[in-house]
């Protein structure tokens, strides 16, 4: 296998990480919604924490995108 093909396969594998980040982000919002429906009066005050969790989960997925971009354009 030549190096060019290996790059594309690596970038494709890196894209799997984005799907895993989707699980994480979905989990953050699902848990928030589940608990917000149990106690709606406490939900609004926790919105900041919701977005911190979302940002953390999303960042780790975006790193997978960066890996793919590095493989395609830099390496």
């Amino acid at each position, binding site marked *: 296998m030549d190096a060019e093909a290996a790059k594309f396969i690596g970038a494709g594998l890196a894209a799997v990480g984005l799907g895993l980040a989707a699980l994480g982000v979905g989990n953050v919002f699902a848990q928030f919604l589940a608990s917000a429906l149990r106690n709606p009066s406490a939900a609004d005050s926790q919105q900041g924490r919701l*977005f911190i969790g979302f*940002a953390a989960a*999303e960042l780790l997925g975006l*790193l997978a995108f960066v890996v793919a971009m590095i493989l395609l354009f830099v390496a």
Partner: protein
Amino acid sequence: MAAESGKIDPMHQFMIEPVFGHQWNVAGFNLAFTNSALWMVITLVAFWVFMLGGLKRELVPGRWQAAVEGFTGFISNMMAQNIGPEGKKFVPYVFSLFMFILISNLMGMMPVGLIPGLHAFTVTSHFTVTGVLAIISFAIVLIVGFGRHGFHFFSLFVPHGTPVVMIPLLFVVELMSFLVRPFSLALRLFVAMTAGHILMKVLAGFVINGMNAGAVYGAIVSLPSFVLMIGITVLELLVCAIQAYVFALLTSLYLNDAVNLH
């Protein structure tokens, strides 16, 4: 671009090209006025127009003033919640940061490409721009932290109630997580914008290439892609707002660390 060649080149939209002043060379650096600079100026003008239209200080706010007060109130509420009464000092900085990111994100989504010869450029889709914004935030955190607490600021890296045995290890871990903050802050905004715009260009390429390939391909490829693209555009508008909010929120949290030391 994809209309003639039939090839999709989603990275072309991020090219920085000089608009004028190709030969402005100062000490070996080319200071040409690029499309990135042009769109920053457009963002600033939009910001100024928006703010100046709303700063009327009327007792009963009109629609415009209510919109501006909605934004300022949103940010000052966030600062009061996250930092407390001392957060008031940082409201101007975080508000400017939030509005600059929000407006430049939205400006990149504007359909100015419909006018021939014009291309929307997303300022925040470049790591240099978001990196500088993140470095400014991080520098303010460091200056405020060391200015207020001196070397006591390092106690930020040792959480309360840590067993003595664990202190060296935890110090290193917390220091690493502190130092990676500006990087993660810049990377999040940059990648979210870049990825969204690449996705939209790829879908646009599907639509145009499908239509060029004939009526059957137009029906089975272009139409679903176009419908999907409308949905993705709405999603991207949401992402624009969320990324600006997350940047401002994380900046306020980091400032809280510097002001209140846990």
